[in-house]
Each structure stands twice: as C-alpha cells, then as structure tokens.
C-alpha cells in the first residue's frame, strides 16, 4: 500500500539542491532539476555507490556516481553511461501545500 512521506518545504530545496531521505531501510536521493523535483534510490546499480555524493547537473538533470562515474538520468533512473546498466528505482514526487512529498511502498 503506497504512502506519502514528507521530505521538506519546497523553499528548502531550491533548483540545484539535493537532499538525502531515509525511510525504512531505503535511502532516497531527492534532486531539484531547474524547478522540477525528482527522487531516486540512492544506490548505484553497478556497485552500490552513494549517488547523492556524486556530481549533480541540474540543467541536464543527471547525477554521476562518485564510485565509477556512471551517469544517471534523474527523470527515469536509467544509466546514460556504463559501467552501470540497470536502472535505479524512482519514486513519484508530489508537491502538496508547498511541501515536497514522496510516494513510497
């Protein structure tokens, strides 16, 4: 049964900002790409590197894994470069009452 969890007020995550959210045993990276917010599992599908610690390009809406350089498309979770080849999970983002919320299972 999906549920909504709060991340933070929208004004606390401006364009170009990112934040790590922990829920249950999951770590979720939340990114504001030039006004649109996306959320992905913060674990590279190649070698479990922490994506939130990598280089975030808000204009291209990508994040680079700091461990071996795979580039992930934040809008889909798909890797744009090797060595990762499996997409990471994405989470629907809802803005409600100026608050960023995530839908999680």
């Amino acid at each position, binding site marked *: 049964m999906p549920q909504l969890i709060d991340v933070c007020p929208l004004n606390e995550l401006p364009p170009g900002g990112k934040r790590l959210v922990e829920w249950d045993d999951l770590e979720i990276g939340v990114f504001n790409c030039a006004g649109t917010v996306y959320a992905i599992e913060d674990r590279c599908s190649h070698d479990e590197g922490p994506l939130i610690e990598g280089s975030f390009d808000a204009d291209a809406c990508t994040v680079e894994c700091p461990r071996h350089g795979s580039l992930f498309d934040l809008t889909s979770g798909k890797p744009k470069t090797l060595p990762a*080849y499996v997409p990471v999970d994405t989470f629907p983002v809802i803005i409600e009452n100026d608050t960023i919320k995530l839908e999680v299972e």
Partner: protein
Amino acid sequence: MATPDTVTTDTPVLTDNDRLRGINDDYTERYGFHDAENYLYKAPKGLTAELVAKISEFKSEPQWMRDFRLKAYEYFLARPMPTWGSPMLADVDFDDIHYFVRASERAERSWDDVPEDVKKTFDRLGIPEAERKFLSGVGAQYESEVVYHQVHEDLEKQGVIFLDMDSALRDHEELVREYFATIIPANDNKLASLNSAVWSGGSFVYVPPGVHVDMPLQAYFRINTESMGQFERTLIIADEGSYVHYVEGCTAPTYSSSSLHSAVVELIAKPGARIRYTTVQNWSTNVFNLVTKRAVAETDATVEWVDCNLGSKLTMKYPSVYLMGERAHGEILSIAFAGKDQHQDAGGKIIHAAPNTTSNIFAKSISKDGGRGSYRGLLEIAKGAHGSRSKVVCDALLLDEDSRSDTYPTIRISEDDVNVGHEATVSKVGDDQLFYLMSHGISEEEASKLIVNGFIEPITKELPMEYAVEMNRLIELQMEGSIG
C-alpha cells in the same frame, strides 16, 4: 600398442631450464632501438593541471573537452592506486613520466611528408609495407600523436571514417561527443582517469549502416623517448549491420627506466553489427601497460577481442563486452606470454544484460623463466538475461619450476534459465608428449615448439595471416634453446 623405437641423438638433451630462452630474445635488435629526439615539444616530467590545460590548448579543443580533461585530472588525483593485481604497481612513479611529446605538426596522408627519422622508424618496423600489402587503412602514432594516417578512397566514399582521434574531434565533433566516455567514464578507475586527462592520439572509426570493411584497419603505436607516457584514446562505432576489423600493434625502445602506457578503448556495435579488435602487444620490458577496454554489443551484434600480450614489464588488461541487446554475442580470445621478470595479468569480462545472449572466453597463458601469468575474469549474467549461454576456458602452460600461473575467475549468475561452463587447466610440456614426437625423428627443440604452437593455435588461427606468421615467429624465438 608397440613400444616406439629408442631415439638416439648426438645433441645434448636439454633440461627444462635451459631448453627455452627469454621472451623476445631479438627484441633489442628488432625494436629496442631509439631515434634522436628532434621534437617540436616535449613536456617536462610530471603532471599538473596546467599541463592538462596546455595539451588541450595545443590541440585547439572545444571547451567541453578541456573541462572533461581537467575534471578527469581531479579524479586521478583523488583515487588511490589499486591494491590488487600486481605488487609491481607500487613501482609506477607518476612523477617520473613525460606526459606529452609532439614529434610533428600533424598527421600526414603520405609517408613522404612524415619527418624523415620517424618515417625511417616505421619503415624498419614494416608498417608502410604492411599497408601496401593487406590493409584498408593505417594510423601510425609516434610518441603522443599520430604522424601518418590514410584510409582507402573507396571506403571514404562509402562514408567510413577512420581518423586519428584528435582530427575526429575537430572534424566530427558532434559524433564524437555523442559516444565519447559513455562506455568508460572519466572516473571509471585511476588509469582511465589519467587517460581521460591527458589522452592524445588513438583512433576514431565510424562505419555506416550495412558497410563491410573487408580488410583490416591498422594502428601502430611507437614510443621513442625515455620515461614516456603514451595515452591513446580509441573509439569505434559500427552502425547497424556493419563490419570492421581493427588491428593494433606496439613496440618501444629498451630502456632501463620505466615507461607507462595507459590506453582507453571504447567500442559500440549497433544492432546486427560486428567488430573484431585484435591487439598484438609487444612493448619492451620496461613498460607498464595498464589499459581499459570495453565494448557494448546491441541486439544481434557481435564483438570479438583477440588480445595477444607478449611484451611489457606489467600488463593489466581485461577487455570486456556488455551484451545489452537480445542475441548479442561476445568473444574474448587471449594469449599471454610471461617471461623473465614479466607479469601478464590478463583476462576478460562478459556481462550478459539481455536474454538469449552468448559468449566465449578462451584464455591461454604461457609462463617461463620465472614469469607470472594470471587470468582474471568476470562472467556476469544479470536478472532477466534468460536463455544466455557462456563458456570460459582458461589454460596455463608452465615451462619451468620457477614460473607461476594464477587464476581469478568470478562468476555471478542472477537468472535460473542459463547455461554456463567454466574449465581451467594448468600443465607443463609433458615428457610423454615430447617422447612421442621425438620418436618420430623430431628434435627436442622442434617438439617443444610444436607443443607450444598447438597450445595456442586456437587463438593464433584467428589472427590475420600476417600477424599469425609474426606470432609464430616470435614463439619460435622464445623456444630456441642452446643447442650444441
């Protein structure tokens, strides 16, 4: 079965140790020479961000490439040296290397326009002759840059692009940018980061849909100066249904100080395409050869790596194929000779990321005179890659008691409906094999050569004939003992 007749000979019987000489006994005479240095530019030893920026400036590169290089340099500095592979890695001194040496203004299209001393070197190595006889195109790199480049006119008319990488970036920027560093990103590993920062030379190949390049394209890499670092960057894109065979060879002078070769090679085989990439690595035994090679095979595509490692002090190289599309096929054929004071740490990786994909890894290593050969491999079958089949065979031949062979295979399977086989053997030249051959009138030396040739034949038969002949010649030289 009747007992074979006793063999009598006037020649003294060789022991295991003195039966065989060191690898490439005639290397110094054939390849170990060096030319006087008449360079346009030779960077001082050591690497700085300023030198990285200067390399980019020398090449008049677009801003994105300069930014890429500088970012890669930061990655290189931040990452420690690997602690696995070989204890020899600790001997690599990054401050004792020249990272950029320019021998000529540009890549010429006629050998007559190449600087005379450089041309003489390539004549001596047989490159222009090879081009005349059996190649579709040739690139010749001397130190940091390509000095000669030519491709058959009929291929150019069909839209085949075969250029040195520097020229490709200049003339086909968008095409290069689309694929560059998508297979091996700048932060993939420390040596790839280094290459990404200071890459120079190498080849760019694009083959349009449906075009078959029937004769090989060749690149030859030559180091001349002492304490040199060569960092070529190669990118090959075979578009749908096309075929290309790329062959590369390399040699260097024999110095007492170390040189460093760290290449990055990226291959993309689009649906239905086939790429064969053959390497005959014959660096002198003062060269650290630390290379990253990786390929993607899309639906119904095939990538084959034929990797022969004869030279260098230490080679660490594991060509890999990612089978990303259904029914893609990957093949890695690897030969490694490890002689005195050499460590060949070779192997391959195949990742089955789609259903009904197939692969073979066939690795042969020969160790002698105390050399060390290692097979290091990965076979991975991802969830969803049902119906995949793979076979890995790694055989090692130890020619004396001082030599060493290691095997580090890794297999990760995340799918039930697959078929995977792994075999490994370690052997020596058997006394009974020798006896059988000698009983037919063959000398002990010839018999040893036949046995070793037979051991590697499954791989040398895949080389273009001229290279197979050269490989057999090199093997024969290794096998020559002190008769009489």
